[in-house]
């Protein structure tokens, strides 16, 4: 039974992360009776633990991502702290060459990118200094606050008549004649006319209950945050192998570096702990923004994130069932969420995305994927690697 006594909804979405909540909000604002459920609290996974970046120029959802972010505060009715623009700093020639692909992708879409020399970087980024090779200034993209955006989606969903059911575990699905008829949960059965699975690391296991195979592997990644510092003119500054931003409050929030592959069974319900990796992140942040070297680190955190074998999302209505949509954004979900939610809405309502070509995000690309792809790619938990 759901919060208000109605058992089920026209569309039930499993996963109250940024993708599921955005999809739920897009559906609810179209007047679709929508219920989003989650095994834990809304946005408690990677959705609320990321760098907040919104500049994904490689993605088929990019143009819609760029169109929507400046409108999101108004559309949702709550603040997301979206800030436009980004500077990426290269400390050496290798990084400079590596980061250049943004220039080409932006040009393809008709967005402007400026190449910066060391002096220009120093002028634009007061906390930078020391060794700088150069940088890029994106006149697009930007960053938002994940926590605030998550709750904005949740509240906006509710304002549109949608429902959110937290701390509700999925126990199984009921199918009938090639359709999903209902979801069995720890709070009882929920009937549905359409089911969306957008459950982050749990997406693969849940989809497999319906006979849909989504190849996924989960990993742990970490971030750190410092005490607030005086605001730079542009907070979206990263580079030197880090992603992140100066928040509107002034904190430096950055991540990057190695991930640790983990078994889903170990991650399920577990708290993600950070490790001494935080020191290696601090080291690179010190080099990126040396004038912040005195700033104190006041928190670190970790999150569990899923990836497909090629790191690209899956957003699809699998042919196996008439009324199922599955979505994993493969470790890059926050920034794309305004667009991915809208794409899922389109798939649910009409079977086709109205604004982007999602053919590269289909599961069929994995038809010839090797069964032991995880091993071939070296995507193995540490214990396994050590034994080997």
């Amino acid at each position, binding site marked *: 039974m759901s919060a208000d006594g109605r058992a089920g909804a026209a569309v039930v979405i499993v996963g109250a992360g940024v993708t599921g909540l955005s999809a739920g909000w897009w559906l609810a604002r179209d007047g679709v009776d929508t219920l989003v459920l989650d095994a834990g609290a809304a946005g408690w996974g990677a959705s609320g633990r990321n760098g907040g970046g919104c500049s994904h120029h490689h993605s088929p959802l990019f143009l819609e991502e760029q169109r929507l972010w400046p409108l999101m505060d108004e559309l949702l009715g709550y603040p997301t702290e979206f800030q436009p623009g980004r500077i990426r700093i290269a400390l050496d020639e290798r990084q400079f060459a590596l980061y250049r692909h943004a220039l080409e992708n932006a040009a*393809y879409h008709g967005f402007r990118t400026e190449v910066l020399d060391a002096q220009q970087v120093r002028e634009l980024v007061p906390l930078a200094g020391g060794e700088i090779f150069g940088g890029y200034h994106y006149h697009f993209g930007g960053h938002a606050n994940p926590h605030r955006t998550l709750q904005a989606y949740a509240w906006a969903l509710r304002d549109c008549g949608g429902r959110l059911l937290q701390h509700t575990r999925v126990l199984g699905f009921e199918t009938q004649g090639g359709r999903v008829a209902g979801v069995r949960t720890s709070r009882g059965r929920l009937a549905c006319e359409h089911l969306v699975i957008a459950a982050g690391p749990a997406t693969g296991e849940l989809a497999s209950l319906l006979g849909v195979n989504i190849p996924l592997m989960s990993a742990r990644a970490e971030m750190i945050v410092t005490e607030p510092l005086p605001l730079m003119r542009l907070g979206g500054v990263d580079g030197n192998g880090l992603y992140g931003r100066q928040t509107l*409050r002034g904190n430096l929030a950055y991540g990057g570096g190695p991930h640790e592959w983990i078994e889903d069974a170990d991650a399920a319900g577990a708290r993600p702990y950070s490790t001494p990796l*935080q020191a290696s992140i601090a080291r690179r942040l010190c080099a990126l923004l040396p004038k912040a070297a005195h700033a104190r680190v006041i928190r670190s955190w970790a999150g569990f994130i899923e990836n497909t074998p*090629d790191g690209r999302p899956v957003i699809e209505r699998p042919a196996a069932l008439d009324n199922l949509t599955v979505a994993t954004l493969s470790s890059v979900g926050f920034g794309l969420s305004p667009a991915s939610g809208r794409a899922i809405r389109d798939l649910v309502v009409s079977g086709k995305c109205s604004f982007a070509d999602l053919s590269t995000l289909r599961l069929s690309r994995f038809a010839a994927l090797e069964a032991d792809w995880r091993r*071939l790619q070296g995507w193995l938990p540490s214990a396994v*690697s050590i034994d080997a």
Partner: protein
Amino acid sequence: MNARAHGSIGRDRASVAGKQPPIDDSTDLLIIGAGHAGISAALTAAGCGVRVTLVDENPVPLTTMGEDVPLHFGGRVAATAANHNAVLETILRARPQLAEVIDAGVDVRLGTAAWGLFPNRPTAAWIDGHVAGLADEHRAYLMRFEQVIVAAGCRDMGLAFDGWHRPGVMGALAAYRLATDYEALDARVAVLVGSGTETLQIGNALSEAGIRVAAVIEQAAAIAGPQELASRLLEGGTRLLTSHVIEQALSDAQGVAAVRLARVDAQGHRVCEALERIECDTLVLGIAAVPALELLEATGCAISYQAERGGHVALIDGSQRTSLPFVYAAGDCAGIWPSKTLSDATARREGRIAALAALRSLGAKCDGRKEEPVSPDAAGGGLDAQRLGWVRATTLRSAASPFVCQCEEVTAADILELNPPRYLRWRRPSPATQGLCTVDAQRAPDPDVVKRLTRAGMGPCQGRRCREQIAALMALASGAVLPDIPLATHRPPVRPLRLSQLAALPEAAAMGDGWESWFGIAAQWVPYWRVPPESRACAGGKHEAVSGE
């Protein structure tokens, strides 16, 4: 499983595999905190054939004290505390048994804070064994250990009123620490807020240290601690004002100059009478002593609310062992109750029990020594009511809307209405639509959700001054009982550390070679207009760096 036995195996050069940090320092038994429990544990374990290391963060760097970490020092640290060596000597004088510990062969490291414990676990298996993050004033470093006894003591609950951000408003334990270990408490006339056992005991200690205790304030109709401790203060000329709360701290250029008190009824409502004014330079907050849980909680020890132990504490067995079998809690961080406060014998016994259990786990000889398990006093039942009473009468009913979270400038109303931070200058279109109970109507509100939305508890003091107040406010507003309000999580580093300090930790060479901003999956960033139709496993043989976004 031996993966290689199944054929060729790829390598993910961007994963943590093979990048374990190099660690030179190691010990068998690490003891964190050199108070009564820690010293007693160290003396018990010394000479048993295992390496014992005892760390204590005092003397704490002045800049850290300035952030009210680890205690609410409230700007009353005297200039003499800047002399590190002089403070070291004072500490050795104040804790004479430290010399015995050193003589017994224990590796004693003062001025050394523990900022994280990192055990190997299924979701963090790249770390071998158990690793502690330590830091002195200059550097941070890692140390391997087999067993750890956390004897981190306790800290004070904060309480927001008009002017509580002024220099001179400080915690009772902070005042005691400065007066004894540092001989650097910059106070002459103090008013004590709260009347529990610890607070009255500290009041007497301050009085002995030459500070005039002008008054003891208690919101309830009667004092909470033993009459005998109160009587000693009264004999020295201290006034006792029950059914009173602080209305406002008045200040001059040096900080607190006087305090104005309001009389309250049993429901915490202000009774309309002329406000009492007392001249003082220091307001000592002794609302509650809270077990210092940050290291235990951040490490993942199971925590529960136990009123008889002073609130949230780590679950321990009869040998002081937490839910993590290599972690023990002893002393005030394992629980606070009146008889334990009145005599150091209990904390010492807990230290011995933990040390003996740790020695057994290490396979060391301990001559069949045994100690009976420690049990707390029967719960007085007044703990929750006391805390809620103070917050209700002082903070919730304050007309001045003081910041409960000083670091992030968040008021009680902001917390209860879940207002976004004020720097956004965002105005809620309809005030009634969202609030504390709208996040999840079916559960008690969660302080971590409040933290994410309002920033309360997210500042440089790491929530030390506000977290108990926030929990109390949430209980008062939602009707939940205090034990049902979850504990907001702690994260390492549990002491603020400069970026440059953390950055100095040595790392494996492979860390730099394989560093990627994201997963290092080349196919992930191929623009969609160039994506191949099929995806096959990528053996990852090419050692090319990948630029993620």
